[in-house]
């Protein structure tokens, strides 16, 4: 009887249910409405970057006025964010009437996004992307970058184009599809108190690691892989041996020497080489907390900002290995589907201005190396740049230049990461 009455009673509630279902329908409808407002806001296709680049700069400036530039960039460092949001953005607004909208995303995410946008056939959502190396190569290979445009920027003449580190991005010619923004060089980070006599070469480092088991490691991402790549240069004939594009045989020979070195050293790594910090920030934390005695950075000046932020101890210093350390530049690209290439070009040009480059170089701001040929600047600017680099923790420019090694084809980097994940990270 009970069951029957329950069943029966429910049928009389059908109308009740209709009401609640209507409530649900309303909600779904509201959502659909919300979605359609975005889905239907398709504007006419913007002009591609190459077309805009062909215009007079004044026309580019007037096209850019009053627009918003969406800039996809790495947003993980408050110093960089502050530079972009609080120094760059207001100046862009005041001088060019451009609203800068920076949002997070790096390397693979940018590729992923553009690939996905192309697959979905929707208009682009980024005007400017912060890229280099393998990201640039992948984007170029997939035809996801607009251009050429970089050589049309008024400030492009100031760029230190004689430097191979700037004129070549991982052996590739930027070809006007990206504009240089900053220049950095790999450095080990050590503590002058804990390790007053740090190793200066890979050979010395290996000895040091064996003598101090558990005190060294590298991260699993870009920085750690750069470290391995330098190791490959050092043990297999220098950077010259790997120039001229990717070659499987040379890679095999070179990487074999890397695995050899690692097989010998890694049992003396932190945690016996069985675990690696996920990212370089985690490595910094291990270093600061004395779990390991070395950290590393792709930016020789990072130690300056990180000490200032209190993340690294005040006695931390950068160190260049005499086998040579990789120097590279980072660039700004404009996606093929960027809605506002004119605005993006104006931003890229402003970021190349001596003013913006100097501000970025200052240790209390970011300490990111300049891509300008400082010697060609007026003396007033030369003095300012010299003063900015005079921080006691900074490495002298001549030793940076002496040990700088260029990047080679991005494929080496990719293969090394892939094989490291499969061979080393997964254990012997």
């Amino acid at each position, binding site marked *: 009887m009970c069951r029957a009455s329950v069943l029966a009673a*429910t*049928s009389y509630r059908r109308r009740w*249910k209709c009401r609640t*279902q209507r409530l649900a329908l309303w909600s779904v409808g509201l959502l659909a409405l919300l979605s359609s407002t975005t889905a239907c806001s398709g504007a006419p296709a913007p002009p591609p970057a190459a077309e805009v680049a062909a215009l007079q700069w004044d026309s580019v400036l007037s096209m850019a006025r009053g627009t918003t530039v969406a800039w996809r960039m790495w947003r993980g460092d408050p110093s960089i964010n502050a530079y972009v949001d609080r120094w760059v953005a207001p100046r862009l607004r005041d001088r060019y009437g451009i609203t800068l909208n920076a949002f997070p995303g790096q*390397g*693979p*995410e940018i*590729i*992923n996004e553009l*690939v996905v946008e192309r*697959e979905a056939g929707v208009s682009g959502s980024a005007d400017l992307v912060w890229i280099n190396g*393998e*990201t640039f190569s*992948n984007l170029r290979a*997939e035809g996801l970058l607009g251009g050429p445009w970089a050589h049309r920027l008024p400030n492009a003449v100031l760029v230190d184009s004689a430097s191979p580190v700037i004129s070549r991005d991982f052996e590739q010619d930027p070809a006007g599809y990206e504009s240089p923004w900053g220049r950095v060089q790999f450095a080990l980070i050590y503590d002058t108190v804990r390790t007053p006599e740090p190793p200066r070469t890979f050979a010395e480092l290996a000895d040091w690691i064996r003598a101090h088991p*558990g005190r060294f490691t590298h991260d*699993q991402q870009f920085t750690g892989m750069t470290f391995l790549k330098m190791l490959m240069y050092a043990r297999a004939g220098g950077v010259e041996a790997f120039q001229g594009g990717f070659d499987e045989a040379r890679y095999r020979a070179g990487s074999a020497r890397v695995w050899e070195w690692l097989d010998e050293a890694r049992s003396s790594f932190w*945690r016996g080489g*069985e*675990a*690696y*910090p*996920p990212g370089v920030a985690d490595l910094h*934390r*291990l270093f600061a*907390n*004395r*779990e390991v005695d070395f950290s590393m950075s792709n930016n020789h000046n990072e130690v300056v900002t990180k000490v200032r932020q209190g993340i690294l101890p005040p006695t931390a210093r950068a160190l260049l290995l005499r086998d040579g350390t990789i120097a590279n530049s980072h660039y700004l690209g404009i996606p093929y589907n960027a809605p506002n290439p004119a605005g993006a070009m104006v931003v890229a040009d402003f970021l190349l201005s001596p003013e913006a480059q100097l501000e970025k170089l200052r240790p209390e701001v970011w300490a990111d190396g300049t891509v300008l040929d400082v010697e060609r600047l007026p003396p007033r600017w030369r003095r300012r740049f010299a003063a900015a680099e005079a921080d006691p923790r900074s490495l002298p420019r001549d030793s940076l230049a002496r040990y700088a090694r260029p990047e080679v084809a991005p494929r080496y980097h*990719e293969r090394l*990461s*892939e094989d490291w994940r*499969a061979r080393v*990270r*997964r*254990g012997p």
Partner: protein
Amino acid sequence: MRRSWKGLAAAGVVAAPVGVGVVYAAAAAVGLVGVSRPDGASGQRVARVLAEPAVWESTLWSLWVASASTILAGAAALGTAAVFRGPGRLDRSARSAAVLPLPIPHLVAGVLGLLILGQSGLLGRAAYALRLVQAPADVPALVYDGWGVGLILTLAWKEFAFLVLVAWSALAERGAALEEAARTLGASPGQTFRRVTAPVLLRAMLPAGVAVFTFILGSFEVAALLGPSDPLPLPVLTLERYTDADLGRRSDAFVLALLGIGLAALAVGGHEWARSRWPDLEG
């Protein structure tokens, strides 16, 4: 049976997005859509990814972490619920405190895990202050460790609050009457707990336990922050493949996504099957 059709249709609406995701992932996994589109569909990618030992190690490892944290959190919840159920001040304070982590996002738990459980974290520093250790290396590795101890502890801490709440409401509902019956039938307090309280609680906690298990199995943030580099927790491996610079490997992620959803579906299906087999488990 119009009514049941409606009920199932309503459930279908809620489940539909998963279906959309599964269909897209399946199409991408066999190459019908996606970047590295080969000529037509092919199961090669699925076969290659599923043949990777790393994938299965990640899967097993994630299953281990999910089981261990669920059991740990469940056992702690069971004990706490049984001990602090009275009306006293201590009981009430313990109850209020125990549910505090309930609304805390996983991410915050992960941040805390890093700050507290790392070898140079606060736990290690406390050990140093007590002169138990000399250096971070002497502290047992709880973060990035092969057994995922820190990860398990963090997740168990987070989910404990949820399970203890479930346990308390089950006890409040019918615990006392059953226990009184057991006591008058001659059971000692210990026997009462073992034979009456614990089984009643366990059955009430089964659905919550399954939910916790599947949450943890799929949870990303804590695993990404505290998990080891080998094997990578399954969700972390999925994202690593999805954002691989090599566009060809990007679609591997879809195979892993299907694997993850499949495991979740298995857990859910098993749970509903168990509940239909033993309806009294519904409490």
